């Protein structure tokens, strides 16, 4: 890779790594796994930087790589979520630790693909159409899966709503 290409990649990756990590954290529910997923995503971007850097929307390209890598890893892995894993990277005081644990536990009730849809739709603020394109499925599928997932999250006994109005 030419030096300028590598420099461009490094500049992009440094600017975006935190956001990729946060999205990965919501997908994995674990700080170490999220770090690994974010780094794998960046490694794939670096490997295909020539093509990636020509993408119409590089951020969408990166989110696509992240989501598909997560789903691919989930297919071959039987997930084990002990309570202490949910608390890995435990937040310091004043960082809403209960909310984060409650949220991660609720998200963990969703299968991988609906979980990705919910995170892309509500965390990344992508449109239904963008999520459908990214995950190669229909908009109807995204709508129905998100509606079903949100209904499930609303039914979770974690009192997530208590935090949304907290000052």
């Amino acid at each position, binding site marked *: *890779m*030419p030096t300028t*290409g*590598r420099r461009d*990649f*490094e500049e992009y*990756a*440094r600017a975006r*790594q*935190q956001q990729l*990590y*946060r999205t990965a*954290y*919501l997908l994995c529910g674990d*700080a170490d796994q999220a*770090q690994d997923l*974010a*780094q*794998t995503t*960046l*490694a*794939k*971007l*670096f*490997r295909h*930087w*020539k093509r990636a850097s020509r993408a119409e929307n590089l951020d969408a390209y990166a989110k696509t790589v992240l989501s598909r890598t997560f789903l691919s890893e989930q297919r071959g892995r039987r997930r084990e979520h002990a309570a202490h894993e949910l608390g890995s*990277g*435990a*937040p*310091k005081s004043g*960082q*809403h630790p209960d*909310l*984060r644990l409650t*949220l991660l536990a609720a998200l963990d009730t969703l299968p991988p693909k609906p979980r990705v849809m919910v995170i892309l739709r*509500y*965390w990344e*603020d992508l449109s239904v159409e963008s999520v459908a394109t990214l995950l190669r499925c229909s908009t109807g599928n995204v709508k129905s899966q998100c509606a079903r997932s*949100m*209904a499930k*999250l*609303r*039914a*979770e*006994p*974690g*009192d*997530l*709503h208590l*935090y*949304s109005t*907290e000052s």
Partner: protein
Amino acid sequence: MLREDSGDQEFRMVLDRAMVELPPLPDLVPGAVRRGAGSGFGPGR
């Protein structure tokens, strides 16, 4: 549990509040470059 009538916006707020301050993230870029370059495909191909 989430109130059904509060809708999607409430869930977005929950996500934002939960993710305000995550533990510090080490720089992932050098490792990503190593892994990408060492993948056997070679960068930029």
